[in-house]
C-alpha cells in the first residue's frame, strides 16, 4: 500500500501509478495537453508540473511515479506562474482566431488560457503562417493551430496502428503531416480528431456549421454499421446529425471509432430518403397514403394466403433493424401469415457458421468479449481481414501484438501486415488441405485433450502428412513448423473466423477443422459479423427453423410454449432459407415476399437469378429507408425510420444487448409499427405502444433474455444469460461434408473485397465515405497486372459466366496472384453480380470461391 498526500488529501494506492493518475483517482484535476488516457505518456507539454516536497524542481505529474510518503501540491502560485509561462509560449504561434475556429468552446488550450493565462502574449513577432490543408475530403488540417502535443501521432501509431501521420520539420516550424502529403492515405478512423486538444485536425463534414454549445442534444446509442456494436454519441442540432463521436470509458470501444462509425452517419439526413409509401400503378411506383398502402398489403397478403396457402409467402428480415423490429417481423410472419419462411442475409455466412460451431461447443461458443482479444497470447485469423470487416475488433488484435502476442494468419491480411504476422499463404483453393495439416501436426504435438469424444472420433482418421504441404499448398516447411510451434505453445489463443472461410467450397469442413484446432489448443472463437444486428436477428428467431431464443421449431414442446405465449397455432414445418426462397420464387411456388430493410437484389450472389425470382412474384413488399434496387421492383414500398430515429436494442457479436436511442425526430413509422398496423388489418391484433413493451414481451418469451429490461441494459453489461447450459443442439453428431475446390493454376478467381470504408448498400448514401472511396475497382496483384499488361487505373472488362462489368483496376501487392478482388457496395458494380454459388449442405451458406473471371483491357 502506497500513501501519498495530494493537496492535503491523503490517498491510498494499491500499486505504483503516476502522480497524475493518483490525482485523477482522487478527483483532483491536473491540466494536461499532451497526456491522454488512451495514449502512451509523453511528458511534452509541461503543463502538468507539480510541486513535490524534497524535490528541488517542479515535476511532470504524467511521468513521475508515486512513492510512499510523497507530499504533492498541484495548485500553488509558482505552479500557476509556470503554467502561464508555458501557455504564453504556446500562444507565440497559436493564432487567436477562436471566433472562426470550430473547436472554440471545447478547446483544451482555450480553457487553460482562460484559467491560467494572460489575455495577450508579450511576443511581438509574426505568428507562423501555414495555409489550411484542404486537399482531403474528410479531414482538414490547420497547422497554425497545432501545438505539437503529438497526441494524434501517438494515437495513429500506438493505438490505431495506421502510422499515417508524423511530426515534420523542427523547432518552431514543426507540425503534423501525413506521409502521403496533402491527402491522407490512411484508415480514416478519425481518432486523431477526437484526441486533438485544439482545432488543428478537424472533420470537414460539419465544418463551420455549428458551435459546440449550439448542439441541442446528445444521444448515447450504438453504431449502425458492423457487428462490434460500438457505443457512439450522436450530437444533433435541429434534427440534423452534426457529428458522431465516441465516448471514453465505454465497454466495447472505449473512445475509439472507425471510419464508418464516425463519418458514415450522413445517410440519415440524405435527401433521397423515402418519405411516403409508394404503390405500383400501371407499372410505375406512385406516391400514396399510409392507409391505402397498408390496406392494400393486408388484403393482398390475405388473398394470397387463401388462394395459395401460407407457405406461398416469405419474409426477409434485416440485420440493420433492431431486435424489436425483427421480433415483430417474425411474429407477424408466423402468426398473421402463418409460415416459417423467414430468413435474412445472415444466411450468407454468419447464421450457418454460428450454428455449426455452437453445435460442437455449445451455445455461446462464438460470443466472446472483444476486448479480451488484446489479452490473448496468440490470435489465429482466417477468412478475411478483421481490420476492415470489424475495425474495432481488428484494433484489439493489433493491441494483442503490441503486448507481445503472436498473430497467425492463413492468407494475407493487409491490415495486420505491420504486426509481424506468422503468415501461411496457401495457393488457391488449398486452405482445407492446409487446415488438415495443421490439425494433424497439432494432434501429434499436443495429443487429444480428451474432453470431447465426438469431435475426437471425427479426427481419428485424419492423417495429413506435413511433408506433402509444400507440394499441395505451396508452403515452406520451416514456416509451417514455426506456425505450429507458436500455436501449440499459446496458453490463451483466440480464433477469428471471417466470412471468406465460410463462403468457400467445403466451408463447413473448414469450419470443422478450425473448430478442431480451437479444441486442441483450447482457444476462444470470434465470428466476424458485418452487420450491426446479425446476432440479434438470429436471437429473435428470424430463421426458418428457430423460434426466438434459438428454440428449434421442430420440437413440439417448444412450439407449444410459443403457441401459448402468442395464443395461436403455429406451423410446424421449417421454412425456406433465403436461397431456397429465391429458387422457389423462380419456380413459381412462392407468390409473395415481404422484405424488411434488406436489398436482396444486390446483397445476394447471382444477382440475375435473384432478380428473375423477384420478377416472377405476384406481390413484393419492400420496407426500407431508400429506394434500393429491390425496392424499385416492388409492388408496394414503405418508408421506414432509420437507426437514429427509433428506439430499440441491438445485440452485438459478443451477445451484448445495447440500447439504440432516438436521436432525431422524423415523421413516419418504425418498422415494428408498420408491421403491427398491417397485422391488425389482417385481423391479428398487435398492440404495442413502444419498443420497450415489445422488449418486455421478448423477455417473457425468449429464454435467453429472461429478466432483462431497458434499465438493466442501460447499465451496460447485458450480455445475455446462459445459465451454463447450452440451449440448442447436441454434440452427439457433427455433420461434415468433405469437399474442396479444385485448384486450377493460371486462372483468376473473383473474391469479394470487404472494404473498410463501405458496408453493404447503406454506406453509399453517406457522402463522406463515398468521397474517401468513390468507386468500385478490381484489385489485382502485380504479377497479374504484368501478365495482362495492365497498370493502375486502366479500365478492364471483367467477365464471368453470369455477366460482365467494366471497371478500373488497382494494382495491390496484398492480393494473391490468383485473385481479383471486387467489393459489393457500388451500384451496378457489385461483385455478387458476377458470382454463381453452390449451397453448402451443412451451413446452408453459399460457396463463392470457384467463380472464374476473365479480365480484358478496354481501350478507349
Amino acid at each position, binding site marked *: 500500500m502506497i500513501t501519498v498526500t495530494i493537496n492535503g488529501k491523503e490517498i491510498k494506492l494499491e500499486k505504483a501509478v503516476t502522480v497524475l493518475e493518483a490525482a485523477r483517482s482522487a478527483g483532483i484535476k491536473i491540466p494536461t495537453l499532451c497526456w491522454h488516457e488512451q495514449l502512451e505518456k509523453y511528458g511534452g507539454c509541461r503543463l502538468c508540473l507539480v510541486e513535490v516536497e524534497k524535490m528541488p524542481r517542479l515535476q511532470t505529474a504524467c511521468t513521475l511515479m508515486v512513492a510512499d510518503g510523497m507530499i504533492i501540491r498541484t495548485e500553488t502560485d509558482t505552479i500557476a506562474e509556470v503554467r502561464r509561462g508555458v501557455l504564453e509560449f504556446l500562444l507565440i504561434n497559436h493564432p487567436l482566431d477562436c471566433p472562426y475556429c470550430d473547436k472554440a468552446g471545447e478547446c483544451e488550450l482555450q480553457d487553460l488560457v482562460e484559467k491560467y493565462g494572460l489575455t495577450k502574449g508579450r511576443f511581438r513577432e509574426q505568428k507562423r503562417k501555414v495555409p489550411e490543408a484542404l486537399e482531403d475530403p474528410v479531414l482538414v488540417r490547420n497547422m497554425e493551430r497545432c501545438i505539437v502535443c503529438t497526441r494524434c501521432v501517438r494515437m495513429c501509431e500506438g493505438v490505431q496502428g495506421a502510422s499515417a501521420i508524423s511530426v515534420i520539420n523542427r523547432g518552431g516550424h514543426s507540425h503534423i503531416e501525413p506521409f502521403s502529403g496533402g491527402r491522407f492515405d490512411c484508415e480514416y478512423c478519425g481518432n486523431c480528431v477526437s484526441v486533438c486538444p485544439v482545432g488543428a485536425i478537424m472533420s470537414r463534414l460539419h465544418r463551420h*456549421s455549428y458551435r459546440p*454549445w449550439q448542439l441541442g442534444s446528445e444521444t448515447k446509442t450504438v453504431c449502425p454499421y458492423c457487428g462490434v456494436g460500438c457505443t457512439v454519441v450522436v450530437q444533433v442540432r435541429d434534427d440534423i446529425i452534426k457529428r458522431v463521436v465516441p465516448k471514453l470509458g465505454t465497454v466495447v470501444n472505449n473512445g475509439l471509432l472507425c471510419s464508418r462509425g464516425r463519418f458514415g452517419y450522413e445517410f440519415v439526413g440524405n435527401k433521397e430518403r423515402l418519405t411516403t409509401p409508394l404503390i405500383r400503378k400501371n407499372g410505375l411506383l406512385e406516391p400514396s397514403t399510409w392507409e391505402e398502402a397498408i390496406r392494400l398489403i393486408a388484403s393482398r397478403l390475405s388473398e394470397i394466403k387463401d388462394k395459395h396457402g401460407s407457405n406461398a409467402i416469405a419474409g426477409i428480415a434485416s440485420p440493420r433493424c433492431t431486435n424489436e423490429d425483427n421480433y415483430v417481423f417474425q411474429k407477424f410472419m408466423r402468426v398473421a401469415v402463418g409460415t416459417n419462411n423467414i430468413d435474412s442475409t445472415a444466411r450468407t455466412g454468419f447464421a450457418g457458421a454460428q450454428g455449426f460451431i455452437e453445435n460442437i461447443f455449445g451455445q455461446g461458443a462464438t460470443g466472446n468479449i472483444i476486448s479480451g482479444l488484446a489479452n490473448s497470447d496468440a490470435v489465429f485469423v482466417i477468412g478475411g481481414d478483421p481490420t476492415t470487416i470489424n475495425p474495432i475488433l481488428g484494433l484489439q488484435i493489433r493491441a494483442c501484438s503490441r503486448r507481445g502476442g503472436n498473430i497467425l494468419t492463413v492468407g494475407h491480411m493487409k491490415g495486420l501486415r505491420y504486426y509481424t504476422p506468422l503468415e501461411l499463404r496457401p495457393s488457391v483453393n488449398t486452405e482445407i488441405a492446409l487446415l488438415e495439416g495443421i490439425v494433424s501436426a497439432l494432434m501429434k504435438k499436443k495429443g487429444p485433450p480428451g474432453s470431447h469424444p465426438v469431435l475426437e472420433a471425427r479426427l481419428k482418421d485424419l492423417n495429413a502428412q506435413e511433408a506433402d504441404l509444400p507440394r499441395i499448398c505451396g508452403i515452406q516447411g520451416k514456416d509451417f513448423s514455426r506456425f505450429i510451434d507458436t500455436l501449440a505453445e499459446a496458453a490463451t489463443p483466440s480464433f477469428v473466423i471471417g466470412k471468406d472461410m465460410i463462403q468457400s467450397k467445403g466451408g463447413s469442413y473448414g469450419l470443422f477443422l478450425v473448430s478442431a484446432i480451437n479444441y486442441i489448443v483450447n482457444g476462444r472463437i470470434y465470428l466476424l459479423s458485418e452487420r450491426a444486428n446479425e446476432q440479434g436477428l438470429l436471437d429473435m428467431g428470424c430463421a426458418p427453423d428457430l423460434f426466438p431464443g434459438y428454440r428449434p421449431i421442430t420440437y413440439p414442446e417448444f412450439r407449444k410454449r410459443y403457441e401459448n405465449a402468442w395464443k395461436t397455432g403455429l406451423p410446424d414445418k421449417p421454412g425456406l432459407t433465403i436461397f431456397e426462397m429465391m429458387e422457389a420464387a423462380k419456380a413459381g411456388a412462392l407468390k409473395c415476399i415481404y422484405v424488411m430493410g434488406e436489398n436482396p437484389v444486390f446483397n445476394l450472389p447471382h444477382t440475375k437469378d435473384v432478380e428473375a425470382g423477384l420478377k416472377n412474384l405476384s406481390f413484393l413488399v419492400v420496407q426500407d429507408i431508400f429506394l434500393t434496387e429491390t425496392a424499385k421492383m416492388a409492388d408496394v414500398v414503405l418508408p421506414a425510420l432509420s437507426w437514429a430515429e427509433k428506439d430499440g436494442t441491438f445485440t452485438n457479436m459478443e451477445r451484448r444487448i445495447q440500447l439504440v436511442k432516438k436521436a432525431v425526430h422524423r415523421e413516419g413509422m418504425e418498422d415494428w409499427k408498420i408491421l403491427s398496423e398491417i397485422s391488425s388489418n389482417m385481423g391479428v391484433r398487435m398492440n404495442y405502444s413502444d419498443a420497450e413493451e415489445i422488449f418486455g414481451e421478448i423477455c417473457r418469451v425468449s429464454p435467453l433474455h429472461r429478466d432483462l429490461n431497458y434499465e438493466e441494459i442501460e447499465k451496460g453489461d447485458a450480455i445475455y444469460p446462459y445459465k451454463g447450459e447450452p440451449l440448442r443442439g447436441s454434440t452427439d453428431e457433427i455433420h461434415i461434408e468433405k469437399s474442396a475446390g479444385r485448384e486450377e493454376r493460371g486462372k483468376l478467381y473473383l473474391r469479394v473485397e470487404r472494404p473498410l470504408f463501405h458496408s453493404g448498400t447503406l454506406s453509399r448514401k453517406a457522402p463522406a465515405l463515398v468521397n474517401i472511396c468513390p468507386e468500385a475497382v478490381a484489385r489485382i496483384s502485380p504479377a497479374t497486372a504484368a501478365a495482362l499488361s495492365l497498370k493502375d487505373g486502366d479500365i478492364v472488362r471483367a467477365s464471368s459466366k453470369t455477366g460482365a462489368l467494366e471497371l478500373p483496376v488497382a494494382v495491390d501487392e496484398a492480393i494473391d496472384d490468383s485473385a481479383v478482388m471486387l467489393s459489393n457496395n457500388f451500384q451496378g458494380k457489385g461483385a455478387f453480380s458476377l458470382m454463381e454459388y453452390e449451397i453448402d449442405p451443412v451451413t446452408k451458406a453459399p460457396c463463392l470461391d470457384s467463380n472464374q473471371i476473365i479480365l480484358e483491357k478496354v481501350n478507349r
Partner: protein
Amino acid sequence: MRAGKFIQTIFFTEIIKGMALTLRTLFTPPVTRRYPKVKRPVKPGFRGLHALAKNEEGKMKCVGCGLCGAYCPSQCIYIYTSEGEDHKKIVDRYEIEVLRCVYCGFCVEACPFGAITLSEHYEYSDYSREPLYMTKDKLLANWDRYFAGEKGLRYFRDFWRPKAENFSAYEGQAMFDKVKARRKEQK
C-alpha cells in the same frame, strides 16, 4: 406650534398654496410630449432595435462565432453558419426573436467584432409576430437606417469597443462608477 396649525386650518393656506402651483403650472409649457407627433430625444447608449453592423466595405462584420447567442439570457438569437466556397465560414442565417429580447445588451458586450448593435430606434410595434422576427437582411438594413454616417463610429467609440481590438477598456468608455473606481485603483 398649535397656534400656527390653528391658523393654517382656519385660513386653508394649504389649499391656497396648492392652487398657486396649479396657477403657475397653467403658464408653463407642458411636461408630457404629444408622443406620436413629438418624439423624445434618445440619450446616447440607448438600447433599442437590433442591427448588424457593416464594415467600411459595406460587408457584414459578423463572423458567426455565436457568442452573442451563447450569452443571451433569453436565448433569442439563432445563428446558422456554413462553409463558403472559399472554405471560409459564412453566416447563412442570423435571426433575433425581438419579442423575447430583454434589451440587456449582453450580446453587444460579448461580440468580439462589434457586429451586433442596439440602435436608438424603439418604435416597432406590429399586429403579428412575423415582422418582429428579425432576419439577417432586416438587421443589416437596420444598420443603414439607424447607424448612417458618423453614428455607427460613435456608437463603438463611446460605448462598445469590440474586444478583438483591445481587451482593456477605452478611456472614455461608459461604465458603472464602481468599476471605474476599481480600475483607477488598479492603475
